[in-house]
């Protein structure tokens, strides 16, 4: 779960990390008012959950009302890499001499957090990591102890941060780790952490991704999530409501299954047999009939979908419940909107086959056959 820049900055500022003065605005007047209060020059920054906003025209530096109006008009309402811009952050423009990078993330290979510092901030840090890995100082943290102060200093000195600001950067890194730890962060980063000509440091951007599995104990962040999610894909929002693991893709074969690995495999097989998967949809373990019906509703709601493959290998999930759910979902239609191929295996698959209304669906015995049939239907549907 990724916070918006303005939300992450609020969280960082509350913890004592210096951030530029800023205000959120959602229309031209708001931008002008904010700019006047803050004082020109200001940056007008699109609040959407994608990287590379600057290059995509989502960030403008403006010097006066006229420029601010132009920037506001062009950015608010724009489509930025598929995201609709509803809000912008109007922010004090910081005069900087250096741009640093500081970040905390979970190193899953090591199974422990890692703190990172680089003097090559202000650019895509993943590119830096690839092209010049030495430019990023890394310090692994023992999560039982937390980050020792010496570790923050070590990362900062190893990165070659100027001595004049080393202490302040260490302190920002320590706070960032504390935040990451307290708030169940997945990633927390500041890029760039600007250094001003009078040797102050200030967080000019702020990224905070939260572990979704930990939102239950982060009520404040869960509220922010609701806000952050708005403006995203409608189908993905619907999946959230239904509590499905769902990812929208660009093909036309809809896919429903149980268990992440099996659903991924079904997608892969669609591709393998020449089709294009429209989505990943995992109903999870032990799904009952109504959940199965909801899954079909989800996939039917995607206009790109021309056929659906339903692949269930029952462990906890029972074939009879699945069949019941499919029947329920399809019997409400006079005409089935998209052809549905069903493959049931595992727990109670025979009971399921008995229940399943074979007038409404196509049944296949194996995964391979089911996927091939769905790909054929999708090709027909498209034609």
């Amino acid at each position, binding site marked *: 779960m990724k916070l918006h820049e303005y939300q992450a900055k609020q969280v960082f500022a509350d913890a004592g990390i210096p951030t530029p003065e800023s205000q959120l605005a959602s229309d031209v007047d708001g931008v002008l008012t904010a700019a006047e209060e803050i004082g020109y020059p200001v940056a007008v920054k699109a609040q959407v959950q994608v990287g590379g906003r600057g290059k995509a025209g989502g960030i403008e530096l403006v010097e006066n009302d006229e420029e601010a109006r132009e920037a506001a008009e062009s950015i608010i309402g724009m489509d930025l890499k598929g995201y609709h811009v509803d809000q912008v952050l109007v922010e004090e423009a910081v005069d900087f001499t250096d741009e640093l990078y500081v970040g905390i993330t979970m190193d899953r290979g090591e199974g422990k957090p890692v703190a990172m510092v680089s003097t090559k901030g202000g650019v895509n840090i993943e590119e830096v990591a690839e092209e010049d890995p030495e430019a990023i100082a890394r310090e692994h943290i023992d999560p039982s102890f937390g980050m020792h102060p010496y570790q923050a200093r070590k990362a900062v000195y190893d990165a070659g941060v100027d001595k004049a600001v080393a202490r302040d950067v260490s302190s920002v890194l320590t706070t960032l780790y504390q935040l990451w730890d307290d708030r169940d962060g997945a990633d927390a980063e500041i890029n760039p952490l600007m250094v001003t000509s009078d040797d102050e440091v200030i967080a000019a951007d702020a990224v905070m991704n939260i572990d979704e599995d930990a939102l239950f104990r982060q009520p404040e962040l869960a509220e922010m999530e609701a806000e952050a999610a708005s403006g995203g894909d409608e189908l993905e929002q619907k999946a959230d409501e239904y509590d499905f693991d769902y990812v929208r893709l660009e093909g036309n074969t809809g896919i429903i299954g149980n268990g992440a*690995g099996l*659903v991924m495999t079904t997608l892969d097989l669609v591709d393998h047999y020449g089709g294009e998967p429209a989505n990943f949809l995992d109903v999870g373990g032990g799904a009952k009939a109504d959940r199965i019906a909801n899954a079909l509703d989800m996939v039917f709601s995607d206009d790109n979908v021309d056929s659906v493959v339903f692949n269930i290998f029952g462990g906890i999930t029972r074939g009879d419940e699945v069949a019941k759910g499919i029947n329920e979902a399809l019997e409400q239609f006079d005409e089935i909107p998209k052809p549905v191929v069903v493959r049931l295996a595992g727990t109670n698959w025979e009971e399921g086959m008995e229940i399943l209304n074979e007038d409404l669906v196509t049944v296949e015995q194996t995964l391979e056959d089911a996927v091939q049939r769905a790909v054929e239907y999708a090709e027909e549907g498209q034609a």
Partner: protein
Amino acid sequence: MSVLVDDDTRVVVQGITGGEGKFHAEQMMEYGTNVVAGAVPGKGGQEAAGVPVYDTVHEAVEEEDADTSVIFVPPAFAGDAIFESLDSGLELAVAITEGIPTQDMARVNKRLTETDTRLIGPNCPGLITPGEAKLGILPGNIFSEGNVGLVSRSGTLTYQVVDNLTNRGLGQSTAIGIGGDPIIGTDFVDALELFEDDPETDAIVMCGEIGGEDEEEAAAFIDDYVDTPVAGFIAGRTAPPGKRMGHAGAIVSGSGTGTAESKISALNDAGVPVGDTPEEVADHIEEFLA
């Protein structure tokens, strides 16, 4: 023969009074697993699934000689339940729970370096030695006794592959679901090592998926240390970067690490054939054992 679990294993079920815990405790016992106790705070002195319930795992160990725990505890409390199992002198703990916060697992991961208890999972279906015992939620009826070791990050994908194997008469020595989370106890390398050392395992199936670099590490380990033939499968070839594909650990990073291509090529380089379909995996195993 088998690895990790057999009919002597003495199991305590943490969370046995919950719906899932009770159901699967019964299923395990029906399969022949020696479930000796449950552990649920506040429920000590009761009985569930026909076995005594204790307030703490420690008591279950003292009173019933439990040596293995299977954990069905909701995610908010599962990290603590794992710590309890690791601190109770068990040989093995199997955490089924999905959705444990990653930071909780990072702390568990630290404790694992300090204890002799092995952890399987979390977010896994458990493990099974066909004909002897199963720990977890795997559907026992699809498995058959044999000499194929199987290790997988995914539950239902395991069932699919096992089904393909069993349909051809290729039984399993032990099947281990290591779980789909970014931080897990037993990883591919650990499981491969167990199978390599098991005289009754003659071929190995390894089902990986996108995310992380465990499969790459496993490939390097196979290259260096594993003589038993291994066939692989990697799920998620069509997954877009930056999207979590169901499992918390199944994500290709924005910078392109954790892709299926990288894993498949690492495995191929280590001499491991990777099937394009589950059927092809069974083909490879059949060849190995022919």
